[in-house]
């Protein structure tokens, strides 16, 4: 890169990042799609947080990959209401709520795939890959350690000396 090229490049990078930085610090006046805000009373913040996290865990059956929390669809609203009812009115635990929805809508509605007789490999495959990676790591290290270092010949040493001098 010639020095003019470097100047141009550095200025463009600087401008680009200054732009990005100011952008990222921008706020108001920007669009969101959801208009459905359900007002539910909660005993405390922990309960509200629990509800939020549950509605984020379930998939809206009708939508193109959205969770219950983020969907406008009527069925999503109904299911949010169901989660609320089960959590607050009936005192279900998190797992009971998951089971309830799973019984009616199937595994599809859970973003956290269950570990069952049909789905065990969904979880075990990535874990298996991780173990495989460790094994490969171990083997490569073993091989690398065993490598005998290549002895430098006098010729090579002489060349190295010359090169270092030239620098």
């Amino acid at each position, binding site marked *: 890169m010639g020095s003019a090229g470097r100047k141009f490049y550095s200025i463009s990078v600087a401008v680009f990042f200054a732009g990005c930085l100011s952008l990222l610090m921008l706020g108001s006046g920007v669009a969101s799609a959801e208009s459905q805000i359900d*007002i539910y009373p909660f005993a405390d913040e922990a309960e509200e*947080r629990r509800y939020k996290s549950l509605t984020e865990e379930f998939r809206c059956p009708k939508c193109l990959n959205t969770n219950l929390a*983020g969907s406008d669809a009527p069925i999503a609203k109904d299911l949010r209401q169901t989660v609320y009812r089960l959590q607050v009115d009936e005192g279900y635990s998190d797992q009971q709520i998951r089971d309830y929805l799973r019984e009616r809508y199937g595994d599809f509605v859970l973003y956290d795939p269950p570990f069952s007789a049909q789905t065990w490999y969904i979880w075990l495959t990535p874990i298996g890959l991780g173990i495989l990676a460790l094994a490969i790591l171990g083997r490569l290290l073993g091989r*690398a350690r065993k*490598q005998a270092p290549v002895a430098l010949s006098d010729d090579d040493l002489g060349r190295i000396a010359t090169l270092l001098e030239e620098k």
Partner: protein
Amino acid sequence: MIPELGLFSLVLAGSLSLFAALIGLSGTRNVLLQRSVVSMTMGQFALALLSFSALVWSFATDDFSVAYVANNSNSLMPWYYKVSATWGGHEGSFLLWILIMSGWMLALTMRGHQYPTSFFTKVLGIMALLNLGFICFSLFTSNPFIRLIPMTPLDGADLNPLLQDFGLIVHPPLLYMGYVGLAVPFAFAVAGLLEGQVDSAWARWSRTWTNMAWAFLTAGITLGSWWAYYELGWGGWWFWDPVENASFMPWLAATALVHSLSVTEKRGTFKSWTLLLAITGFSFSLLGAFIVRSGVLTSVHSFAVDPERGMYILIFLALVVGGSLTLYALRAGQNSTQVAYNFLSREFFMLINNLILIVSLAVVLWGTMAPIGYEAITGGRISIGTPFFNKFFVPLGLLLAIALAILPLLNWKRTKVEALRPAAISLVTAAVFAVFIWFVLDPTSVVVASAVGLGAWVVLSHSVDLFKRLRKGTTLPMAYIGMTLAHLGFSVCIIGIAITATQSEESDVRMAPQDSVMLAKQRVTFLGVVDAQGPNYSAQQGVFLVEPESAGNYELRAEKRRYFAGNNVMTEAGIQAGLLADTYVSLGEPLTDGAWAIRLHYKPLVRWVWLGALLMALGGFVAIFDRRYSSSRVRQSKMTAKAQTKVHGESQGESQSATTPVSAQT
């Protein structure tokens, strides 16, 4: 007339790419033919630019006789959205893809003098072949210039209001720069395999381009996440949606590649692995295009579903990736170097880094594609989403951070254990800090404290190393500065992620005018609703006064907009962006007695996620400045190398090029 000109330019660009590909890959030694490839590449760019400009022109002038314009635009849109609507749909965004591909090829021709001609000609040939595939895809299945004559509509169908936003102006171009940019290291790898010469010099040539493409991809993904955050309104910034994963996978491969190239350049080893990564990176870009445009996976972000297009991309994918992987399998074993290194060495930790990234890549790929396999095998349907990915990425991210913190202290080949003392000191400091955080935040999870602690450790160990070097007075190579910036960016990012994912607060409340609510040490008062008007919408605007405990008051406005064309109703959130936290307000439905349903978010450190990522991208851009990659140095080194070989009678095979400074670190 103009649209036809655009179409014609595209066809011409296609024929130029066909010839460039044929001649480039023929392996000809004829200098004139080799030079012709360069001129054809430049010609392709000019024609692609012409074609793209024709489409932009059609949008800017409201030419609804072009079907694509009629489907994606409207006369009432502001001009800047009309221009960006050019890449708002499938056909136009793919034309942008072609333009950017031609742009990278042009950039190659400008720097091509520093590479051996036969190698470089092959590189251009491969890029031209890829571009030919893209152009044919566009011409045969996704022509943006199809006309609606004589049934020309009076006005367009309007661009989806979600896309009428600044995000559309910046996110796709940057993202495509990254996606398509990975074709350059891909071409370098394939050309290297074809030439049969892959060595440290090859790695050094590839690094500039890889770093640049990687930096663009990082910036593109970051802006996309930022856009989703304020656009979708429920505080999320990453959803593990197939389209998002489609951009994350090439990024993971490219990050591994960036690191692997450094090892191949400095130590001459990991060659086949680096080649594989270079091929993998771009392959995932193509796979990403397939996922997004074929409809095989359901996503809110995907373009209109069309199985015919999907099939074409699949076949293209099969040929390009299948072909290059076959070439790899046949040729990669040829000149491998076995090099010795210890456990405590830079090579080994680079290997750890690469394996963590590849395992992460495999997890994302699995999580994205497994539901298809499951449905094919059992007929049932499952969903794999955030909870699944988090379970893997949290430990993987933490492991990566640990490796990262130790890295600056490691030498190539072997490091004495004593040299790690500074790391131990930083670790203890960071651990104390982590415990403090755990105590203060009182989080339910130790993971958050560990993430923050590890992030702090990375920052500390890199800063300590930086200080040591500055004190010694050696000039810092730009590549080192780039690396430090990128690693610091990574820590900022994971600290941001850990905090914002667990410490955010959110409330959905009923508020009447003058009601107020406490949101994380801020008092938020609802002042009421006023009417407002925009260029293509009318709105009701909610006004809020926010009074933080320790800082100045400010006002936030949130809107409910009704767009005239299409009658869509959209809500606009009011966001107060801060370095330490975001406060976010949005309007729901009006309730009885003048009250409204209001959503309030408080998100601490959410901006750190993107600022950290942006810092990473900056690191990538800065590293390219390094003098070792400058072409004047390379020319000089080539001449010196020639002189050396004459003097000593034989070259050193695949070891480092003669005048690369021998340094122990970086």
